[in-house]
């Protein structure tokens, strides 16, 4: 019996390990673009007036296509992808390292040759984005991500004044569950994170099971009752 169970266990562990590996290969994500300031898809020098202006005004320094805050760990304050011949947003802007773009306030992707605008997830991670220039050479192809749920001021091809999507009634039709709450994650993007004290898959678990107390109470009471039963019952069995 023991061998059977442990055999099963080993088999299932192995099979699950292999199956996850297999799945990862199939749905391999787009390669993360770690080099935000000198990306593969943009080799030309910087041209955006707005980014340059912003950088000078705030006392940050331009480096390739980024405006960096040298005082604060080289965090990227603005990105200029103007005139990069970008065709698809999903595998360029969407593939940027999400951790490096959290501080970015301005993104300029004007004058590209856009054919595809990506999906909502493309702009996830731009938590601090406050200005987005998206006008294409061919006209207004892409909309402001999140639309009026995420922007207060939308003009043709430019999006200004971010609002918190969680505060709007956007979550009315894509709501988080009772145990989770909405956390802003870039324009048009939000995460459902577990409320305090909730955890586990889909935040279905609350609090911590008192394992020690439970084991002690059950164990000790079982021993005591067993001794009592033995003394009063089975002792008499001939």
């Amino acid at each position: 019996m023991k061998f059977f169970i442990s055999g099963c266990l080993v088999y299932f562990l192995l099979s699950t390990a292999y199956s996850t590996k297999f799945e990862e290969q199939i749905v391999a994500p787009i390669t993360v673009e770690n080099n935000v300031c000198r990306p593969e898809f943009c080799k030309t020098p910087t041209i955006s007036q707005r980014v340059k202006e912003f950088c000078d005004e705030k006392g940050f320094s331009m480096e390739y296509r980024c405006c960096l805050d040298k005082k604060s760990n080289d965090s990227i304050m603005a990105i200029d992808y103007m005139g990069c011949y970008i065709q698809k947003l999903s595998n360029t802007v969407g593939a940027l390292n999400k951790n490096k773009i959290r501080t970015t306030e301005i993104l300029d992707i004007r004058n590209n040759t856009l054919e595809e605008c990506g999906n909502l997830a493309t702009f996830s991670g731009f938590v601090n984005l406050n200005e987005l220039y998206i006008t294409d050479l061919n006209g207004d192809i892409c909309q402001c991500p999140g639309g009026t749920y995420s922007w207060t001021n939308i003009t043709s091809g430019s999006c200004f004044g971010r609002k918190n999507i969680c505060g709007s009634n956007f979550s009315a039709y894509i709501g988080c569950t009772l145990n989770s709450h909405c956390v802003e994650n870039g324009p048009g993007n939000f995460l459902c994170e577990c409320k305090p004290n909730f955890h586990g898959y889909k935040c279905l678990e609350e609090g911590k099971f008192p394992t020690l107390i439970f084991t002690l109470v059950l164990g000790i009471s079982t021993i005591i009752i067993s001794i009592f039963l033995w003394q009063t019952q089975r002792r008499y069995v001939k």
Partner: protein
Amino acid sequence: MSNGPNFKTYGKNRFTHFHLSTFALTFLSYSLFHASRKTFSNVKATISEVWMPSCDASNISCELLKPDNLWNEHTFFHDQSDSKIFLGILDATFLAAYSIGLFISGILGDRFDLRLVLFLGMTLSSICMFFFGVLTEWLSIYNKIWYLSFWILNGFAQSTGWPAVVAVMGNWFPKSGRGLIFGIWSANASVGNILGALMVASILKYGYHYAFLLSSAVFFAGAILVLFGLIPSPKDVGLADPDAEHKDEAAASDVEDNMEQPLIQQPKAIGFFQALFLPGVIMYSLCYACLKMVNYSFLFWLPFYLTNKFRWTESVADQISIWYDVGGILGGIIGGYISDVLKKRSVVIFTLLTLALPSLYIFSDSSDSKLMNAFLMSIVGFFIGGAANMISATITADLGKQGPIQGNKDGLATVTGIVDGTGSIGAALGQLFVPLIQDRFDWFYVFYFFIVLCVLTNVCIVPLFLRESKELYMEFKTRAGYRPVNGEADD
């Protein structure tokens, strides 16, 4: 009391403290069996959430919640209805294994030490519960074969319970004391359901797997108590066979055929077919198959139905569904007592099930008021659960101790296995039908299905009902005619 040591006795049936502890231990043991079964039915909604990503595949407009590792990592099922069908299959395979197991366990119970049979069954079942519900979540093993194999094994393990506890009770309690005692004792299943529901409701918030952990740990603790405390038969402690001392008064209180047979002093186990062809066994087995289909559909699907229909959280639905069992306990005791007074069981069963029909219809149409639902549920439980309790304990004991094997209790486990086994086959089929009907049509039609089954149950016992009604009528006429001076006592 002829031979044996002088233990202090109480009551006219000379009950010792052994009787009390036997009653308590078998009651506890079977309650735990049912509590552990209830665990699974009460976490169904949560477990099916855990199996799925945040969007149902059938809902195209649904946007997946983010982040993915929190909301969409689990892809065991993509579709609510697929997972519902798998849950139904799990119930059905469990019951199939359980019902096959019952026939075997009954035969084993009559031939081996009942205490060890019970202990091993409980231990094995608690291990299965752990592998099924706890380990899967800890190791993220969501695998159909894993789930099915442990649930089938659990079905076999669980089948040791009922034949063993009924046989132990039959060994200790004489026929004359059976009626009310068995009536109260048969509440163990419902008490177990309530216990299970309460355990799950109190712990579900920590995660569904803790519900499995709790019930499997408590179940194992119960197994240890059985190992250290249960005495399968009075003979084991040198007490006399209770039925041997009652042979003079037994005839007066017997319910079925009153043919006095010479007492078999040296009990030996009867064969399977001998037990099967005892009068009434087949009829009541079929009857119980229909009734158990309804009873178990309620047991397994009620919380899921309430969560689905009224959008109550699973904990609330679990708590409300307890009232079905409360009704069942009362129905079993009151029905059992009335049947003792009338000395007729089938008439009572027939009446209960006839009254169940309108109550089912009304319940199917109830509003989402919690109070109203709890009330209607206890009414339905009273009629259906009550009748099921009576058949599974009292009537089975009647059947197992009647005519040809009177005084030979080593047929009791086998008969119990046959009646409960046939019943469980019915229950297993029901678990396939309920999700199918609900998926194809609506919950409403599930209730129509229940009503049809109750009618079928009644049809199975029509011959017994007619015979007993005639006897009752004759008795009534005789009594009315003679008017005995000092009013006949009922027992």
